[in-house]
């Protein structure tokens, strides 16, 4: 049974949270934007942690490849974290230019990252890890509970 569909569905969930935060900022509802963006950042952090601490190590162990696609994905996670931090800081001071610039850049980076994962890396993981029981759904839920505001 493939383990990654839960991550794929979680990408869409994060997209929705992102769109909500962005729309709130454009409407000038900064309190709502900060709440929505905090929720989005929390889900993203949980998503990255699930991949970096569970999925990628399992893939790297199975293939013996630590310098390939997973290292690229880790680098892009770090780039997205930096942009999320910029956007969060801009939201705190209601800086619409700063916020929209950071999230615009984040959106493209995030979407091309997701496409690489969904079209290439996840199918590779599903093939290589078909015998492993990674229980990513439980892992993601645990991490989300730990990083997202109630």
């Amino acid at each position: 049974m493939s383990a990654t569909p839960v991550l794929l569905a979680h990408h869409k969930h994060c997209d929705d949270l992102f769109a909500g935060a962005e729309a709130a900022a454009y409407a000038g509802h900064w309190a709502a934007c900060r709440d929505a963006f905090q929720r989005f950042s929390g889900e993203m952090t949980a998503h990255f942690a699930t991949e970096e601490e569970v999925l990628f190590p399992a893939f790297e162990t199975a293939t013996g490849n630590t310098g390939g696609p997973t290292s690229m994905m880790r680098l892009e996670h770090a780039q997205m974290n930096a942009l999320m931090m910029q956007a969060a800081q801009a939201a705190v001071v209601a800086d619409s230019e700063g916020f929209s610039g950071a999230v615009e850049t984040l959106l493209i980076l995030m979407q091309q990252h997701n496409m690489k994962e969904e079209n290439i890396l996840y199918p590779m993981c599903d093939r290589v890890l078909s015998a492993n029981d990674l229980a990513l759904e439980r892992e993601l839920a645990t991490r989300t509970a730990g990083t997202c505001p109630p």
Partner: protein
Amino acid sequence: MQPNLSFEQAPPLGVPFRFFLVAPWFGVAAGLLLPWAGESAISSRWSPAVLALTHLLVLGYLLQAMTGALFQFVPVAAGGNVWRPRLVAAILQPLFLIAAALLATAFLAGSGAMLRGAAALFVAAVSLQVVVIGLALWRTPAQGATVAALRLAIGGLAATVGLGAILAEGFAGDHGWPLVTIVNIHAGWGLGGWALMLVAGVSYFVVPMFQLTPPYPHRLARALPLALLLVLGGWSAQILGMNAEWVTAIWLAGFCLAAGYAILTLWLQRHRRRRIADPTFLFFRGAMFCLLGSCISAVVMTMLTSIGDDSRCAWWLGILILPGAFVSLINGMLYKIVPFLCWLHLQRLAGIGAVAPNMREMIPERAQRRQMRLHFLSLALLLLTTFFPAAAGVAGVVFAASCAWLGWNLTGAARAYRTFRGRISAAAAGPAP
């Protein structure tokens, strides 16, 4: 074998930028030709000025921008390895530039020798492009509707330029060839087989990505390029002699396919999860409305011969298709691609700890929106010249101003990139002893 996920697949920034930064200035040249051409431009598709400005747009603006996009898109999105991109781009781009300028001059001067020279340059350059990009697309392990459409688009480009070379010889020499029929087939392949095919393939990828829309339905995405190819095959068969009703039916079938693509894209955009309407989205939507408008116009022109027989119909359709659909779409796409590539390359140079200027700091949204308003104003004026030919000069100047503004905005992103890269280099060198 899987496509490589490495960033190293992306070409150096100078490869796509070489094309992107030049493209809008051909729009400026095309716009400025209009006041000079005057009212005659509207009345006949065969006037030298119309031929010159049409080719400045399709070979100067569109071909440059689309080639630059292919150099970026094929390795990154389609997993294709382009052979020595820096070298090939350094050969192709100046060849395209010289050939487009020579061709426009040839039309204006009525010089057969210059026409042959421009055609020879285009055949050489496009042959290189078709071999290098085509081979990368042929060998990529990636599958899907985008790759299939891009492969066909490269074939469409080869057919367009091949037919263009035949036309150049036909006009320069005295061979008695059926030139009007060949011109129509040439235009069909250029607009449908190359430009629309490429735009469709790329939009399968970027529309859901930039606007968080649902994906294009898989079967329709697969079927559209094949249906276009079928229609173009039928359209080309008119060279062998064909009933006029059949030619009209195939012409309408091509427009119906374009309309289907436009309606589907507009429907997807209507169901987007991203709620804001940024300039790229508005440009894209405007382009789709123009494409749809051209299809409705084509149907009306066919059904009402009193309208269809008017020589100004070609101008109306040409404006909706070229500046309306393709220039609008490329303009909007450049506002995403150029600043994002600047940011991506700077981030890579600076490392994670450093904060590179974000996309809006490269090209402010206010500047994008103002230029967009001018572009759509120029489009309205260009369409109005169909009924008020005396306004051609003003419409041309406004279109030229809009293209110049786009060129300036893109150059601004390149300047921001250079400034920040200079700071990174200075920081890496450390304080002077």
